[in-house]
């Protein structure tokens, strides 16, 4: 089973990376960019076949390691 965990900064947390990339895109003349926020994507393969179990394991993984829950949110997507 495959899953994708997306980690993004919580709303209101300063995102220096996103800010600099946004500035660079604007100066490169890429039109229509209003704002950029940067995050991380983890593609994870799971050994089991139970989506509920997988979801629970991924939540555990995100809470313990993948996301810094002080400043980041995460989203789990399990694809069978």
């Amino acid at each position, binding site marked *: 089973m495959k899953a994708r965990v997306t980690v993004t900064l919580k709303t209101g947390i300063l995102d*220096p*990376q*996103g800010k*600099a*990339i946004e500035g*660079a895109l604007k100066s*490169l003349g890429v039109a229509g960019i209003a704002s950029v926020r*940067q995050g991380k994507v983890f593609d994870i393969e799971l050994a089991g076949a139970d989506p509920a179990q997988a979801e629970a394991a991924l939540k555990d993984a995100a809470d313990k390691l993948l996301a810094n829950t002080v400043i980041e949110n995460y989203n789990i997507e399990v694809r069978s």
Partner: protein
Amino acid sequence: MKSAILVFPGINRERDMARALQLASGSEPAMVWHADTELPKGTDLVVVPGGFSYGDYLRCGAIAARAPVMDAVRKFAGDGGLVLGVCNGFQILCESGLLPGVLMRNARLKFICHDVHLRVERSDTPFTRGYNAGQVIRVPVAHGEGNYEADEETLQRLEGDGRVLYRYCSASGEVSDAHNINGAAASIAGIVSERGNVLGMMPHPENHVEAIMGCTDGRGLFAGLVEHLAKAA
């Protein structure tokens, strides 16, 4: 020598580089702003210094590589002009396509600042003529992403064409995993472009040019460049 140092927002070793060039050549380098579209007339050496251009956000060197001044640098290099990129400068040159490959996170995932030994692989280039082939020099590194990687074919071409100029090694010149501080492919610390006129390297020779730093091994690189340009003129 008429050198030009590129200044991108977030670059922070431009003053160190200027001091090293001044000491070696006796003339003050020009500081060229990233938004400029031309290099000063008569420039014979372009230096891309170390630092954290644009915070190294996105990818190291990625944003700087797309700055207006880089078009002028590409043209300058295309005409055979000498370009030296150190640390973030190396990363920028790779991102701009002037050098092959990419600098990844250090194998041990940490920023490292300490002196390393480098083996000078050949002495018949403008960037190494101040040294002897096989000579071991000591210079500091200060980077978090200096792990040079390229595809197998590129690496073979680099080796086959003798384009690896500096390699991490022991004090006695032995190249091994134990002395490969950041996990770089083939312990590569510095390479040149196909034409041999663009050098990128991770360590900082500009910080070892004065006795006060405990070592002056970096001088050879700059002295060699001065000599080369004096002969060419």
